[in-house]
């Protein structure tokens, strides 16, 4: 079935209330910490208090005598018994040599490299006993100097080496595009806009902390790992094949209800490996629940780029070339997909929505004495969008053009469009998004609102951001050629039961996205059965055939397309059964609204009768058709999908305090076909608040000398709260994706990608009259006030 036919089916576009909500609203959700296994002990990790130190000794003798202690595992105990945590994406330097890939041992052996690094795991009968015993583990350290900020790593003056394999702390250099052509275009351009910016480091902070339970069954020799994770099959693959050397069929990974992820629960973490291994070692089920302080210290962080960019334009404001240099902080070790974020997921997006003919990007990635940095909602694409949309707005101001006008002059209008940075956009209508957004934002009334604000003694500004992103990384073979060490397909299984109800098994994972509803809508639409008769199962390697999980806004476009393929198979087989029952030829059977009919007649039978016949095959073509109605499909996309849109933000700035208030925020997105508009709007809301949070308040700060995390709790790291926002105005444009059967593009990250530059452009627009040209996120009252003060002083 094609995307056009699909979008017209019943239930598609319906704001169905969520099937999963009742359990969450009545306290019946089952998150990993709600699971308790028999004979369960508890683990606590001894973590490094130093950013960089040599370990002289780890003395567990006193701790071992503490009440309730089951056992303690140190780095030396597991040395040689397992591999280190793998990195899932190989990046090569321009000369073809591979990136530096130092070992990421599960527990530190000779050195610790960030505050929070894992030194030992203490297992005791209760969590309190484990915590007490962990405090009695004596670690003798020689503290070493640390290199903390990416700028300090990049200038190579620190004299610090984290890993012997990378003496100057560089993991790789990576380039994309034609440098000579870009330099030539910049040299003869009528105008060049330059920009230096920092993309501030963030802590993902899903409200459910990381948590895991390792278990082992001596009878079956099977391991089980319950874990708050976004992709349990990937977790199992990485852990069995790369770390523990276990056969996959002996390990079951279950990610039950998961309380948000935003990227931070994609990765295989040291704790997961320790718990799984130790379950057999101690013959105990072992639970570990992170406290929030541990989440701050040891969840993979996001962003942390320092960038210089130059945009060359002709006299009419047409973009001629873009040149970008970025230093990216990878943290102390390579997290699972860390290396892909500042490269494949970043540089390839730098054409944005524009026809810039030449782009050259150079990325230097650095190890620092900080927690590993990896994908966080958007992953590379927010960094690209922030850079591009900031420099485009700055160019507009330098040339005296409107923020909308400069974008309109440069929009791509013909599709498919091959960018100079490897991607081929299949479809889009950027001008339609811009026009709709400007109308919804009531841009015509901005001048009057600005005057009213100024009459109150405040400042008002407006900021634009026209973003594009790439979702559902694919296809697997091209990703493999670019360094991916895993496939990027998805798997779906449709199990029609004899009574006509359906269980859907999907390799996608819902941790808030509402798949149990959206995927059920897809199946209900196709099979013409009630949504109530469809259950969606995910998050269990013991039940779902395989899966790559949920990240990169891939679930509906890749996971949904796999389900569509399985439904095609179901429909094809069911038609044969129906043809047999109605004594017609297969080719004459039509299926719609849950009924099989013979073309041109009023003969029909319902889906339920076909399902029952498949399992009670008395009147059945057994000579040419197997009984049963159960089909599995794998889908590997032929291209990324490309959601895009225009966001417009209006802020008021208090001149006395520097406080920025979001007065209105308008988001018009093109997500292609939308299955459930209510759920999609919810995804946009959440993304916007994470993006606006980055722009206005969130900031992960380490002490530059000691490497201590200064923002290590919710008391120190500003999380967005309800009172920080107005109601947003949302709308959509629909150009269906041309290469999947649903026409969908994905919506999970758009808000976080598009919003930060819209906010900062608005703040800068408000401050322009005072002579403020630039400052870095987050636009806290202190920073804004300082910017206003320093511009006044210099004026």
């Amino acid at each position, binding site marked *: 079935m094609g995307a056009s036919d699909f979008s017209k089916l019943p239930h598609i576009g319906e704001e169905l209330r969520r099937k999963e909500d009742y359990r969450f609203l*009545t306290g019946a959700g089952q998150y990993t910490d709600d699971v308790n296994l028999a004979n369960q002990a508890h683990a606590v990790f001894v973590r490094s208090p130093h950013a960089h130190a040599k370990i002289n000794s780890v003395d567990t003798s006193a701790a071992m005598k503490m009440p309730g202690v089951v056992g303690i595992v140190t780095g030396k105990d597991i040395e040689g018994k397992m591999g280190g945590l793998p990195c899932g994406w190989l990046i090569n330097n321009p000369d073809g040599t591979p990136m530096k890939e130092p070992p990421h041992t599960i527990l530190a052996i000779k050195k610790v490299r960030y505050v929070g690094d894992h030194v030992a795991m203490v297992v005791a009968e209760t969590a309190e006993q484990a915590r007490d015993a962990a405090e009695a583990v004596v670690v003798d350290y020689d503290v070493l100097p640390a290199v903390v900020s990416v700028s300090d790593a990049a200038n190579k003056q620190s004299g610090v080496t984290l890993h012997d394999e990378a003496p100057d702390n560089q993991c790789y250099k990576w380039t994309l595009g034609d440098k000579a052509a870009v330099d030539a275009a910049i040299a003869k351009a009528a105008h060049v806009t330059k920009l230096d910016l920092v993309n501030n480091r963030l802590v993902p902070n899903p409200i459910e902390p990381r948590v895991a339970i390792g278990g082992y069954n001596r009878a079956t020799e099977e391991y089980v790992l319950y874990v708050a994770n976004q992709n349990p099959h990937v977790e199992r693959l990485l852990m069995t094949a790369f770390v523990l050397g276990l056969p996959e069929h002996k390990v079951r990974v279950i990610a039950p209800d998961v309380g948000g992820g935003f990227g931070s629960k994609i990765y295989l973490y040291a704790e997961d490996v320790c718990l799984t291994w130790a379950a057999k070692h101690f013959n105990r089920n072992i639970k570990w629940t992170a406290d929030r302080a541990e989440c701050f210290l040891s969840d993979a962080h996001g962003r942390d780029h320092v960038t210089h960019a130059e945009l060359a334009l002709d006299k009419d404001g047409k973009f001629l070339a873009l040149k970008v240099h970025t230093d990216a902080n990878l943290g102390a070790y390579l997290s699972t997909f860390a290396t892909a974020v500042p490269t494949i997921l970043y540089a390839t997006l730098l054409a944005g929505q524009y026809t810039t003919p030449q782009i050259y990007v150079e990325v230097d990635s650095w190890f620092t004495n900080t927690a590993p940095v990896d994908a966080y909602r958007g992953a590379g694409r927010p960094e690209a969008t922030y850079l591009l949309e900031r420099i485009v707005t700055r160019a507009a101001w330098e040339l005296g053009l409107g923020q909308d006008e400069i974008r309109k002059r440069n929009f791509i209008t013909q599709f498919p469009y091959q960018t100079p940075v490897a991607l081929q956009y299949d479809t889009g209508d950027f001008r339609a998004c811009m026009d709709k957004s400007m109308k919804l934002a009531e841009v015509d009334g901005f001048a009057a609102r600005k005057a009213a604000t100024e009459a109150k003694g405040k400042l008002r500004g407006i900021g634009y951001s026209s973003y594009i992103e790439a979702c559902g990384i694919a296809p697997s073979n091209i990703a493999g050629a670019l360094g991916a060490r895993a496939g990027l397909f998805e798997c779906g299984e449709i199990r029609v039961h004899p009574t006509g109800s359906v269980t859907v098994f999907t390799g996608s994972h819902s941790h808030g996205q509402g798949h149990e509803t959206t995927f059920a809508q897809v199946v209900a639409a196709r099979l013409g059965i009630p949504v109530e008769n469809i259950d969606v199962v995910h998050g269990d390697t013991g039940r779902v055939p395989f899966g790559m999980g949920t990240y990169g806004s891939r679930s509906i476009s890749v996971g949904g397309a796999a389900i569509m393929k399985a439904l095609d198979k179901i429909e094809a087989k069911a038609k044969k059964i129906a043809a047999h029952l109605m004594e017609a030829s297969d080719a004459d059977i039509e299926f719609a609204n849950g009924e099989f009919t013979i073309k041109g007649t009023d003969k029909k039978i319902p889906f339920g009768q076909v399902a029952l016949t498949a399992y009670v095959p008395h009147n059945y073509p057994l000579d040419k058709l197997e009984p049963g109605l159960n089909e599995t499909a794998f889908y590997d996309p032929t291209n990324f999908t490309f959601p895009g849109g225009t966001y417009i933000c209006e802020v008021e700035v208090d001149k006395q305090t520097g406080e920025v208030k979001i007065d209105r925020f308008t988001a018009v997105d093109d997500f292609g076909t939308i299955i459930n508009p209510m759920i999609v709007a919810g995804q946009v809301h959440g993304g916007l608040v994470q993006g606006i949070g980055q722009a206005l308040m969130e900031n992960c700060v380490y002490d530059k000398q000691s490497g201590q995390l200064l923002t290590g709790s919710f008391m120190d790291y500003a999380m967005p709260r309800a009172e920080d926002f107005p109601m947003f105005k949302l709308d959509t444009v629909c150009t269906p994706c041309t290469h999947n059967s649903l026409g969908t593009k994905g919506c999970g990250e758009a808000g976080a990608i598009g919003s930060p530059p819209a906010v900062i452009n608005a703040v800068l627009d408000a401050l322009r009259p005072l002579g403020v040209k630039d400052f870095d996120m987050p636009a806290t009252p202190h920073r804004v006030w300082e910017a206003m003060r320093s511009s006044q002083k210099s004026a």
Partner: protein
Amino acid sequence: MQVQFTVNGKAKNLDLPPNTLLVHALRELMQLTGTHVGCDTAQCGACTVLVNGRAVKSCNTLAVQQQGAEITTIEGIAAPDGTMHPMQAAFKECHGLQCGFCTPGMVMSAIDLCTQHPNASEAQVREQLDGNFCRCTGYQNIVKAVMLGGKNMSAAPAKATATA
């Protein structure tokens, strides 16, 4: 230490270590796992329950401090036949939840909020929710849900009284 209180209308007589947090007593001794722990500094609000009708962060109070209290958790607010409390129903209707982890605390806070301020404005709702974090919804639909739930609580006051 001995402590007696009611949880969702049922009398509890417990012998606990004095340092047991209320949230741990609920989750571990009574298997009421709908009340969640999201932080260690009483900021996130995922552990919010009602103590004598007022929203309290159960990670921030000892169980033994609750002598004689009436405690209500997310498991105790639906009708015996499973019909959701108006605030629960409003969260579903308005899509005021995504991953569901902050939801029980958010709903309990919202019930207290709307009991104290039956006709709360949007600005009041936003301000009063400052003790509860949600990382998924951007608060947009939560605010709508609280306003709808509050309206429906006023319309059906009998149902709004927690527990039986």
